[in-house]
């Protein structure tokens, strides 16, 4: 290699490190290479930086005695969500019972009026969506009055 003094700006430590690690952009890589070939000082620093990189990596690897094979990963059992009886059974029943009681004892009830079963036809429609939390479940009540008026109450 023909080493001769050069007027090019010398390479700083950061660029030199990037060059040694192959992290320079292609254009920069070529420029650094050309400079190193023509600058004795930078050539020496490049050699030093390269040797430091190799030797420190080697020295650090001394810390590893043996490298065991990766043991099989203990895959945890997939958790099956517990069936929530409170959500699926008790809550709808409680709501239905409360509404019936409310209608039974509600204001304006005339003693001479027809029995409740003849006055109102109440239908509870519940469909529990297991993917939704309790507070997002919908509860639909359909009330049919004796004159055929249908009211639908959606409880959210």
């Amino acid at each position, binding site marked *: 290699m023909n080493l001769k003094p050069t007027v090019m700006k010398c390479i700083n*430590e*950061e*660029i*030199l*490190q*990037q060059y040694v*690690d192959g*992290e320079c952009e292609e254009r920069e890589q070529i420029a650094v290479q050309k400079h190193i070939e023509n600058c004795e000082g930078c050539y020496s620093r490049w050699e*030093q*930086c390269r*040797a*430091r*990189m*190799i*030797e*420190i*990596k080697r*020295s*650090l*690897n*001394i*810390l*590893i*005695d043996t*490298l*065991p094979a*990766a*043991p099989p*990963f*203990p*895959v*945890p059992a997939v958790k099956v969500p517990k069936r929530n009886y409170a959500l699926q059974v008790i809550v709808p029943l409680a709501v239905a019972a409360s509404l019936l009681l409310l209608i039974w004892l509600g204001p304006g009830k005339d003693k001479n009026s027809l029995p409740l079963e003849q006055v109102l036809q109440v239908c509870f429609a519940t469909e529990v969506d297991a993917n939704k939390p309790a507070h997002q479940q919908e509860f639909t009540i359909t009330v049919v009055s004796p004159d055929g008026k249908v009211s639908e109450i959606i409880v959210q």
Partner: protein
Amino acid sequence: MDTFEKTYQDNYNVMYRIAIKMLGNGSDVTDILQDVFMSFFEKQQQRKRVEYPRSWLCRATLNKCVDKLRKEKKFTDAEPAPDTEDKSICQEKQEMKALMSYCLTRLSPREKELVILYSEGLSYKELAQVTGIAFTSIGKTLSRSLKKLENELKTHGYEVYK
């Protein structure tokens, strides 16, 4: 699960080496790695996206190692310099290991992490992701850290390059 298994197989050795370099042999490295991979597995089960799995695993391993070192009070209290003159007791490799472990404690936690990750062949991009150092500053920080380690080794009579 296939993706997890592949990530596990591809990265286990690197994680193991990083943990050993951080803690030294004989530590509970396998337990640490199991914790790290379990966290990663749970993340995948919860459909949480990890953009760069290798960087995430490296960071998690380092964090676990730092926690362990803190518990053992090794992190801040530097170990005494090894007795390099007692050559009859220690073999050359054991001496070198002790010296290297000691010199690593002389670096700042960030420098130590950077040097260890660098020795495992991580790219500058990965080093930036794991350490949080700006990508543009990796070259400069790395150069400084390697020189510092070299000087520490020289101070204790080890020539990095002869």
